[in-house]
């Protein structure tokens, strides 16, 4: 069930963020090659140019979901990450990401939310599967380091 009107830090097991679809143009790809200073030709040359893994990771964060929302002064922070790489993504492809909460727990007063986010290409082929643990800071939540 997609919980489009619920504050993101309140989503529980089984809840979903709205899915995201994005198309990777060569310009979009190059933006991320600059950001991580990785200019290997495998990411730019030819019709089979690969999308840098960093782009696929940052655009499958729960914060990229169209339904992601928090109160002002609150933010999501990644704490743990499991990533399985299934196949290279290709520049010029459209990618589809779904986000489902698979666990929530509290540790030392801090809330944690585990989100599974498979990324598939336009043919439905699996590209990466992420299982990311987020915590929330600001607002009612403890400061980082406290």
């Amino acid at each position, binding site marked *: 069930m997609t919980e489009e009107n619920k504050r993101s830090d309140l989503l529980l097991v089984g809840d979903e963020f709205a899915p995201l679809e994005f198309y990777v143009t060569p*310009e*979009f790809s190059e*933006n*991320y090659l*600059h*950001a*991580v*200073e*990785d200019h*290997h030709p*495998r990411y730019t040359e030819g019709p089979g140019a*690969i999308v*840098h*893994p*960093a782009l696929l*990771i*940052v655009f499958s*964060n729960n*914060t*990229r979901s169209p339904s992601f929302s928090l109160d*002002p*002064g*609150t*933010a999501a*922070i*990644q*704490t*743990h*990450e*499991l*990533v*399985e*790489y*299934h*196949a*290279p993504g290709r520049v010029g492809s459209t990618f589809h990401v779904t986000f489902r909460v698979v666990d929530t727990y509290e540790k030392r007063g801090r809330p944690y939310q585990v989100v599974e986010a498979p990324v598939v290409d336009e043919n439905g082929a699996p590209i990466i599967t992420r299982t990311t643990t987020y915590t929330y*800071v*600001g*607002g009612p939540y403890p*400061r*980082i380091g406290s």
Partner: protein
Amino acid sequence: MIPLTPDVEVGFRVTGPVKTATPYLTRLFSGGWPRTEDWPAKNVHTDEEFARATGLSGRNASGAMMQGYLAELMVDMFGEGWLSGGSFSLKFVHQVGMDDSVTAEATVTGLSNSGQGIAVELDVSCKNQHGEVVTVGTAMGIIDAS
């Protein structure tokens, strides 16, 4: 490129290039859809005021950016094949501040035969310019022994 070969041994260690999380590169990475009116999106990675409002000491680089550095190292070590079967398990243990310099490294901890080649287990980390570990975990990859 530091390709692993079938005669690699446990203890073999590889260090990636030093990357500096400058304010500009961090904004490029975490600012959302590039070349739009809304760029850069305001978040804890792109906006000092936003970050401080959540109780953080200031802007920080995204954990996804550290994953990008580590993925570059893995693809350098295993080749593009790492993107079809490689994996990470990571923990983000310290914030990466603006202009911090980060180095990704990997150490081979285990080798075994798999149906596809030699399965390699690694300890991986990103360390800042003070030698502090900011991201730590494990990775898996396959060396094609054919």
